[in-house]
C-alpha cells in the first residue's frame, strides 16, 4: 500500500450517532478522496480535497462532511449516521495531473467497513 492508512478498519454503530473516519498518508500527496463502495454501484466519490482546508463535494456528498487541517490527514464525518450509510469507505490519494502517468494515479487505502444498525 502506498503509505495510506485508514482508521478504524471496522466499525458498528447505531442510527443517529456521529461517526468519524480517518485517512492518513505519508506520501505528501496534494489530493485526497473519500469514496464509498456498494454492491452494484462501484466506487462513488463522496468528497475530495485539493489542499489543506480546500475541499469540494463529490457525487454522493449528502449526509457527509470532511475536514483537512494537515496535508497528511483527511477526516470523513457522518453527523448522524443512517442505515443507508452502511458501506465500505475507501480513502485515496493522488499527486494530481501530470505528464507521467504514475503522477495521475489514485492510490487507495485498505478501506473501512461501516455498519449502521
Amino acid at each position, binding site marked *: *500500500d502506498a503509505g495510506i492508512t485508514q482508521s478504524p478498519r471496522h466499525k458498528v454503530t447505531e442510527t443517529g450517532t456521529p461517526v468519524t473516519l480517518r485517512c492518513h498518508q505519508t506520501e505528501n500527496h496534494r*489530493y485526497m*478522496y473519500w469514496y464509498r463502495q456498494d454492491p*452494484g*454501484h*462501484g*466506487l*462513488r*466519490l463522496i468528497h*475530495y480535497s*485539493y489542499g489543506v482546508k480546500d475541499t469540494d463535494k*463529490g*457525487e454522493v456528498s449528502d449526509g457527509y462532511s470532511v475536514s483537512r487541517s494537515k496535508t497528511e490527514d483527511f477526516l470523513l464525518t457522518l453527523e448522524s449516521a443512517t442505515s443507508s450509510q452502511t458501506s465500505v469507505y*475507501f480513502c*485515496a490519494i*493522488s499527486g*494530481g*495531473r501530470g505528464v507521467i*502517468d504514475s503522477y*495521475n*494515479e*489514485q*492510490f*487507495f*487505502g*485498505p*478501506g473501512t467497513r461501516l455498519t449502521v444498525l
Partner: protein
Amino acid sequence: QQQVKQSPQSLIVQKGGISIINCAYENTAFDYFPWYQQFPGKGPALLIAIRPDVSEKKEGRFTISFNKSAKQFSLHIMDSQPGDSATYFCAARRTEKLVFGKGTKLTVNP
C-alpha cells in the same frame, strides 16, 4: 446519470482463455482512462491506464484498447489465470476526479 458504463457485470473464463471487459463513456472532457483491480477485502489498485491519444497500450498480459470516436475502451486479459480472479473497474478522469464503472467480477476457473 451513469457516466461510465461497464459490461459485463460478471465473467467466467477458463484458465488460458481471454477475458474482455468493456466500458463506454459520454463525456469527451475525460482525459485519462485507468483500470483498477480489486481483490476481496482490499482496496482497488491501478492495473493499467491509457490516454485518449493512444489506441492501444499493453503491459504483460493486460491490454487496453481505446476507440476515441466510439467513446469506448476495453481491457483484454490474455492467458487468464486463476490469480486474475478479482473485480475490475474501469474509470475516466475529468480534472482531478475519477468516475468509475460499476465493476466486473472475473472468475478464472482452473
